[in-house]
């Protein structure tokens, strides 16, 4: 948001001199998060915070990639997902964005569109310098629509997941 302020000042004591001051200032609000950190560091900090502190939302992964798979969202929550070897959750993207998914256990994550097309990740990692809780991080470009996230095969019985959207304000 840009705010334009024009300040008109009259100084009665100097009325004979008729002094006017015109000041124009433009403020551009900064994005949320640590101003000294790069955006990637900031999003990892957000992932760490919610993997460590929640708030937690326990769910059970679906058996197939359809509407029975529970929804996960980029809503500052940690999804504690019960998985039986392989399970599915889904994310409803309301804008084209880079989806960043953090997990706290080693597991394979595969992203597909609603038509089954595999969405290739832009970046993957198995750790982060920001905290030891991040055991997996995947960045995937997505368009508007539903993305199915397969966890596994061979996933642990419970995987905690935090979803973020890159480039968004991470403040609450």
């Amino acid at each position, binding site marked *: *948001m840009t705010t334009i302020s024009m300040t008109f000042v009259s100084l009665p004591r100097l*009325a004979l001199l008729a002094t006017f001051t015109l000041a124009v200032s433009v403020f551009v609000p900064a994005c949320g998060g640590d101003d000294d950190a790069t955006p990637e560091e900031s999003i990892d900090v957000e992932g760490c915070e919610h993997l460590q502190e929640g*708030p937690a939302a326990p769910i059970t992964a679906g058996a197939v990639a359809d509407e029975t798979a529970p929804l996960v969202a980029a809503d500052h*929550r940690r999804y504690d997902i019960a998985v039986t070897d392989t399970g599915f959750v889904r994310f409803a993207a309301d804008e084209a964005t880079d989806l960043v998914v953090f997990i706290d256990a080693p597991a394979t994550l595969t992203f597909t569109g*609603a038509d089954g097309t595999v969405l290739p990740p832009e970046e993957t990692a198995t750790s982060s310098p920001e905290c030891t809780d991040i055991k997996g991080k995947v960045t995937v470009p997505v368009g*508007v629509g539903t993305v199915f996230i397969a966890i596994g095969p061979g996933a642990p019985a419970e995987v905690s997941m935090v979803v973020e959207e890159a480039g968004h304000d991470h403040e609450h």
Partner: protein
Amino acid sequence: MSRARRMAAVAAVAAVALSACTFSDGEPFASVDVVLAAQLDRAAGRDAGDGWQRLASDYQVRLEAAVLTVGSVDLVGSTGQGGGAFDPASPPPGYSLCHNGHCHADDGRLVSYADVAAELAGGDAAPVLLSIPVGALDLVAGAERTLPCAEGGGCTLPLGRATVVRVRATHLVLTGQVRDGRTAAPRLGGEHAFTIDIPVAVDLTATTDIAADRSHAPDVAIDLALIGGAPWLDALDFAAAPVAEGGALTPVSDPESLTLLTTALLESELSVVVTR
């Protein structure tokens, strides 16, 4: 009269004369002009061609009517009590999740941060400094309206500070066509008419800082812009929607779907630009 006393008398008269120049009797502390613009969200990422827009649910819609009725635009001050501050990352008791300017209350309400703070500060509602009636906004045609104040007297603020702009939505009409974007396993066959015509009680808020006093220029212009439409439908299940008498789907027909729509409305894009 001594020279010192003459000078003191002259100074006193001068002070009175100068102070008379400082204040103008009857002038408001701030006089506000508000322009409210509303239009459809036409994000490129949603464009599915030929007027169709993608939803996050993989349905696609082509809106024919989108009318949001706004009861009023309010300028709200602070409670001034100093208390009630909270960390949205740690929702206070009674709330489960805070994000995007609102918190989810345990009783199902969606409460703005300002109102949560007011509740925590002892229940006193934040004072409404100015309330301007609005009416129906046609997002398809695109509405831009300079809001007149009721009862004459112009739109003026009392001495103080407005910290929140609040747009109070009271009714929503959305009609158009819907189809399923999933071709492999469609949930909905073909194209269907849909209709939503419901009362809502949603406050869209944006923070601001408008001082109304003698140290700021009195004339204030506020430009509000609201964007909505397809995003409001993202979470609705059209395949499960009941069919109205005319054959149109009615995807908002129960408390759960109303909550989904209300949540989406609360996350509408509302921008505020203040110039003075």
